[in-house]
């Protein structure tokens, strides 16, 4: 799709997400978590989803709510276990959820590769560890690397600070985290932005995600949650 669609509601924004889709979900803990798009996805009803996100839900909101609703088959993430990840913990320990743990930098770079058209890359992370199991090993200039494959999403759900009507995005502080990477790595990128401004109002020098990566935008007032028990 050439131009991003500007939608009125989050329900319209998540329309059409199919059962069995791979959905990239932005956020690090709760910073940058697209809460309202996830709530809309729960209402929309898609199930058997593979979710790619840094964590596996905090408390009862966002990704945790999607897990609790029973819509997720598999989570690919770097850090599922946290002080307030009890929804995930219960599902995982009772065998109702598959888990693939990926080192955080490899997770980001595998999505970056998908968005950049890179077929695979060699990473030094995880060499000699249990997470190297089954991966091709190669020595290059005296250093050992593992072959890592891209992670592509059917959809990305991300949260931005401001969007313009074309779909250019800026983020706020560390809530940027996976947003720009996921925006490029998904076939259809859906964005909730705290405000949508007229085209031309964002400083072109400051645009972080160019509109070419964005398919749907919906304006939603920012809603903030902090992780409980973080230390």
């Amino acid at each position, binding site marked *: 799709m050439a131009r991003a669609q500007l939608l009125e509601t989050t329900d319209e924004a998540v329309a059409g997400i199919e059962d069995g889709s791979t959905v990239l979900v932005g956020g690090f803990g709760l910073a940058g978590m697209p809460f309202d798009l996830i709530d809309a996805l729960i209402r929309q009803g898609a199930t058997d989803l593979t979710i790619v996100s840094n964590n596996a839900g905090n408390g009862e909101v966002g990704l945790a709510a999607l897990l609790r609703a029973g819509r997720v088959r598999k989570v690919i993430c770097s850090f599922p276990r946290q002080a307030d990840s009890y929804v995930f913990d219960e599902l995982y320990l009772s065998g109702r959820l598959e888990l693939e743990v990926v080192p955080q*930098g490899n997770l980001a770079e595998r999505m970056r590769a998908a968005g950049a058209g890179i077929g695979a890359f060699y990473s030094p*992370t995880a*060499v000699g560890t249990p997470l190297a199991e089954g991966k091709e090993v190669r020595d290059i200039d005296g250093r050992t690397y593992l072959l890592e494959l891209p992670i592509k999403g059917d959809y990305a759900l991300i949260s931005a600070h401001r969007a313009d009507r074309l779909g250019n995005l800026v*983020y*706020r*502080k560390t809530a940027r985290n996976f947003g*720009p990477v996921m925006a490029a790595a998904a076939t259809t990128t859906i964005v909730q932005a705290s405000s949508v401004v007229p085209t031309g109002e964002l400083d072109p020098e400051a645009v972080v995600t160019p509109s070419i990566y964005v398919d749907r935008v919906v304006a939603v007032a920012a809603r903030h949650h*902090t992780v409980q028990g973080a*230390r």
Partner: protein
Amino acid sequence: MTMLAGTIEHLDRGPLSMDELAEVIARDIPEGSFVNLGIGQPTKIADHLPRDHHGSATVILHTENGMLGMGPAAAGDEVDADLTNAGKVPVTELPGAAYFHHADSFAMMRGGHLDVCVLGAYQVAANGDLANWHTGRPDAIPAVGGAMDLAIGAKDVLVMMALFGKDGSPKLVPACTYPLTGVGCVSRVYTDHGVFEVGGDEVVVRTTWGISVTELRDRLGLPLVTREG
């Protein structure tokens, strides 16, 4: 033995508290470094980092969720859900801070641009192997986060930990029994009982607190050596 007193062995003091140890590590981090402090105990080091005569930090802190120039933990009105450290604790930004996305943040790390990172550990081996992500227990939920990327990324990987577990077993060991985070990646281990250089042919004791080198050799079962300066 008497040769070591006062230079390597400090029998009148120690073992150190984790706050005292944080101060020792902070003193060893060169001014101007780009530094990542791991989740947990290493975050204490931030309180002791050197400051210039204006009171500004001379070290720039990196947090892997996408920021350079991280300031102290946020309090009261400063708390901003969009601004956290890698442990998801609300933090502040310092003048000159910069934000970037996750792939850039880890490229910075993996690409060898970070000078120092300080990590906690379950175990460190004499050869510099690090185990700090998984106990390996069958009922444990594996969670690696950025630990493996940090372990191979920074130019200098330091570990901050208690030398002995709660059951008294050493955490500086001939070979790790816990699942590895990185191979031969640790250069120095700071503990409540002493500081050790690892990753070479032998484990070098730089300093001890409240324990002699002889007793450490015995309790660790490692052929420790000392190098008099």
